[in-house]
């Protein structure tokens, strides 16, 4: 599972991407966030307020209940501010 971080999520985690292999019970975006938040103080800080975090699974916006699986590209970032 390839995880990407953008904007202040990237800064708090301290990296732009990582390969992770969470345990089999991590089957949704919400469960993945819980698992990632426990990986380091930086991760915990990045995911402290989950309402400010957005997610994309395989480059499509995703909700917390969306399924995730090995091989997915999963990105976490703040609400977008382009344009």
């Amino acid at each position: 599972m390839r995880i990407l971080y953008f904007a202040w999520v990237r800064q708090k985690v301290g990296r732009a991407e990582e390969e992770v292999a969470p345990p089999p019970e991590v089957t949704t975006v919400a469960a993945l966030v819980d698992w990632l938040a426990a990986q380091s103080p930086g991760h915990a800080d990045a995911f402290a307020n989950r309402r400010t975090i957005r997610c994309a699974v395989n480059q499509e916006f995703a909700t917390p209940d969306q399924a995730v699986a090995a091989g997915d590209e999963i990105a976490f970032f703040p609400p977008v501010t382009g344009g």
Partner: protein
Amino acid sequence: MATVRVQHAAFDLGAEAALLAAGRTDVGGLASFVGLCRADDGLAALTLEHYPGMTERAIEAIAAEAEARWPLTGCTIIHRVGRLPPGEPIVLVLTASSHRAAALEACAFLIDWLKTRAPFWKREEFADGRERWVEAKAADDAAASRWDQT
């Protein structure tokens, strides 16, 4: 089929508009919007970050939605990334149609949706050295949501 580009380089509004009309006689209206970097509150520069791959896909999906809603003869969206000082253009939306209302409405729709659905993030850098990430605006969500009601 829309032309979509994400690039650091500046774009040329006149040249892009000419491309949408070149060699055709069915274009009655060309609408454009250019968003620029303002020097609010001592801003020294904006830095735009994006999600390579997803950004292009998201913009193409937004353009396809506009093409489904309005009879466009062409559509160009160029969004810059990287560090841009005040006065620099950030984004270009261009729409062409046989009818002026379609071009104007699609242009407004595209910039509203770009602001809320395309993965870009702006970091502000001030003259005094402070930096901060721009927060998403409720006003942008409201502007985008008016297109849901039609």
